[in-house]
């Protein structure tokens, strides 16, 4: 195979996603005979699956043009003068995004069958969202990354707005769009100031400029940071920029909520990693307090709000604000320390969070669809088990992914001298019991109307839930590494996360 072409192979996942999305657009009108919905769904599934497989394969066996970075086996390939970057982190994000899309797809299809989605757009937009996070993953400069975030956002607007069956959808999309645009403007302002300080927005030039930045310009950098962090805080739903999330999560159909809560958030965090840890690593300013404050606020506010929620979905929304707080703890630690521990911890947490919430929202969707949570154990034990696993992981119970992530992030915080933040995080974990446990108890031992029949579950949903909750356990089994037993799945994740850290901090 032509080496010239082979050097572009790393771009394949991204290209695949974009082309897949555009192809979907072409398919929308053309598929008329047969079952158009299934066709579109298969298309979306296949594209995501192949993107996932491709990125994993590329991670396992890097090809020509991917130069190793550091000794961890991390690598990077750059294109068009650094405008496009493909490295361990970007491959991980693509993998996560397409995996997330795959896992919500069955739920979305069932929802679409019930609601009056316009299927064509549905799948096209889902693909566009994944492609958007692909752009974020390999954007060589901040502005491109920002555009990627906007692509994701616009497709989510569309996805939420497409659903005409839910009364809340319109309201949700309206709030989301208005506040989202507002936040984007703020973020852009920050970017402009950053541009003013460094004269460029491309990451490597930013890095170069940051290292010998005249102190006189620090003020400008700080200003830019403040605004950009505010904008990002909106995207990841960190207090006090979180308030949209509950309403939007409630308004959107549950699988979509799951997608928002996981893929979008993770994408935004990767962008933040690129900007703060990689881009401005060198600049002699310590903005740890900024992130720490946001983290603290998110944990406190999220907990206090979540305690009073009656609707599980809103509760989950606020609880995901709390988890944003935990991730910000990791980010703060990463911003403070020069080692890769914190970044690795944060990335592992991102993976754990993604899997856990996909499982949780998936189960929630099915349960709410059919007779509520109470006594689900009698109705369908496996579903209840999956939900239980997800909840325990949210609590951070050992042998679940949640514990692994929390362990690494918290220990990173303590290691980076953010002990107070670590203690606060643990306190918030205590408080979070107050709203997770009752849910678990309802599922395990609630009384259920015997009239309700066992749950009708589409095969796809079964598979999705099994995979997500199963992966939660696999990743959680990583703790077995304490006994020197490297559990394959968890070990790979840890490695991948380590390399992601390495590419950010060469």
């Amino acid at each position, binding site marked *: 195979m032509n080496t010239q072409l082979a050097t572009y192979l790393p771009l394949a996942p991204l290209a695949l996603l974009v082309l897949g999305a555009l192809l979907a657009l072409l398919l929308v009108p053309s598929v008329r005979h047969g079952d158009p919905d299934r066709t579109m769904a298969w298309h979306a599934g296949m594209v995501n699956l192949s993107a996932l497989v491709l990125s994993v394969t590329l991670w396992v066996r890097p090809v020509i043009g991917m130069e190793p970075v550091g000794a961890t086996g991390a690598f990077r390939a750059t294109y*068009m003068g650094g405008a496009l970057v493909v490295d361990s982190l970007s491959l991980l994000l693509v993998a996560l995004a397409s995996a997330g899309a795959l896992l919500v797809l069955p739920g979305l299809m069932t929802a679409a069958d019930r609601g*009056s989605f316009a299927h064509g757009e549905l799948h096209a937009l889902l693909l*566009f969202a994944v492609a958007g996070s692909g752009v974020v993953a390999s*954007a060589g400069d901040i502005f491109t990354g920002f555009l990627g975030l906007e*692509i994701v956002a616009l497709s989510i607007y569309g996805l939420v707005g497409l659903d005409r069956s839910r009364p809340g959808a319109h309201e949700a999309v309206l709030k989301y769009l208005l506040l989202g645009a507002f936040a984007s403007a703020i973020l852009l302002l920050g970017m402009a100031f950053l541009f003013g300080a460094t004269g460029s927005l491309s990451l490597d030039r930013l890095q170069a400029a940051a290292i010998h930045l005249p102190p006189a310009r620090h003020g400008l950098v700080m200003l830019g940071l403040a605004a950009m962090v505010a904008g990002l805080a909106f995207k990841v739903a960190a207090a006090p920029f979180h308030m949209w999330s509950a309403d939007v999560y409630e308004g959107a159909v549950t699988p979509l909520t799951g997608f928002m809560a996981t893929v979008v958030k993770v994408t935004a965090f990767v962008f933040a990693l690129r900007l703060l840890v990689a881009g401005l690593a060198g600049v002699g300013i310590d903005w740890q307090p900024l992130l720490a404050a946001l983290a603290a606020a998110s944990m406190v506010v999220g907990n206090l709000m979540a305690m009073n929620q009656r609707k599980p979905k809103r509760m989950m929304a606020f609880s995901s604000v709390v988890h944003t707080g935990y991730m910000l703890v990791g980010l703060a630690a990463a911003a403070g320390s020069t080692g890769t521990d914190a970044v690795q911890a944060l990335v592992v947490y991102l993976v754990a969070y993604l899997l856990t919430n996909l499982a949780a929202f998936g189960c929630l969707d099915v349960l709410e669809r059919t007779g509520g949570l109470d006594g689900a154990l009698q109705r369908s034990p496996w579903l209840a088990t999956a939900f239980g696993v997800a909840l325990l992981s949210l609590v951070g119970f050992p042998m679940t992914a949640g514990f692994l992530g929390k362990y690494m992030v918290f220990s990173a915080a303590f290691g980076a001298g953010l002990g107070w933040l670590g203690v606060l995080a643990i306190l918030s974990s205590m408080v979070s019991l107050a709203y997770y446990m009752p849910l678990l108890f309802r599922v395990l031992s609630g009384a259920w109307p015997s009239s309700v029949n066992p749950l009708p579950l589409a095969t796809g949903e079964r598979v999705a839930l099994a995979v997500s909750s199963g992966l939660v356990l696999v990743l959680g089994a990583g703790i077995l590494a304490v006994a020197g037993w490297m559990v394959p799945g968890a070990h790979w994740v840890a490695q991948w996360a380590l390399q992601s850290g390495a590419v950010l901090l060469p």
Partner: protein
Amino acid sequence: MLDAILFAVLSAVAVAGALAMVSRRHPLGSALALIVVMIALAGLYALLAAPLVAILQILVYGGAILALIVFVIMLLNVREEDLAHEDGLGGRLGMGLTVAGLLFMGLAAGIHAIPADPFAPPPPGFGGIVAVGRGLFRDYAVPFEVVSLLLTVAVVSAVGMAKRRLD
């Protein structure tokens, strides 16, 4: 010197227009005020050696987007009672602008901290169509392409939402 005066006037017009836009009750009024702001901004761009941007500002903004907005307002043939009856707008504006004033003070303070070195004279053709075009299509091809993707997504979403039910 002339620049300074022009700059002062244009800035004044822009700010005044902005205030007008914010405080007009009827959207059409606000839209007209916005147009004024944009034209003034175009002037400022021109003063800042960005002729192409200035022109595009007038064309795209003044033309396309505003037209779109006005068009939609007309299309919906909004009657007076459909409008948000903005009772107590004054109070809300007062409060909003006060907080926004805090923001402004913060930004201004930040801006003041920057060393204010005067501008170097721009090289010939700076900000002209050639320079910007070369930048746009060579150095910044990727963002450009991404924006095209973005616009596609926007169209898909918009159509998906706006089109009537299929059934």
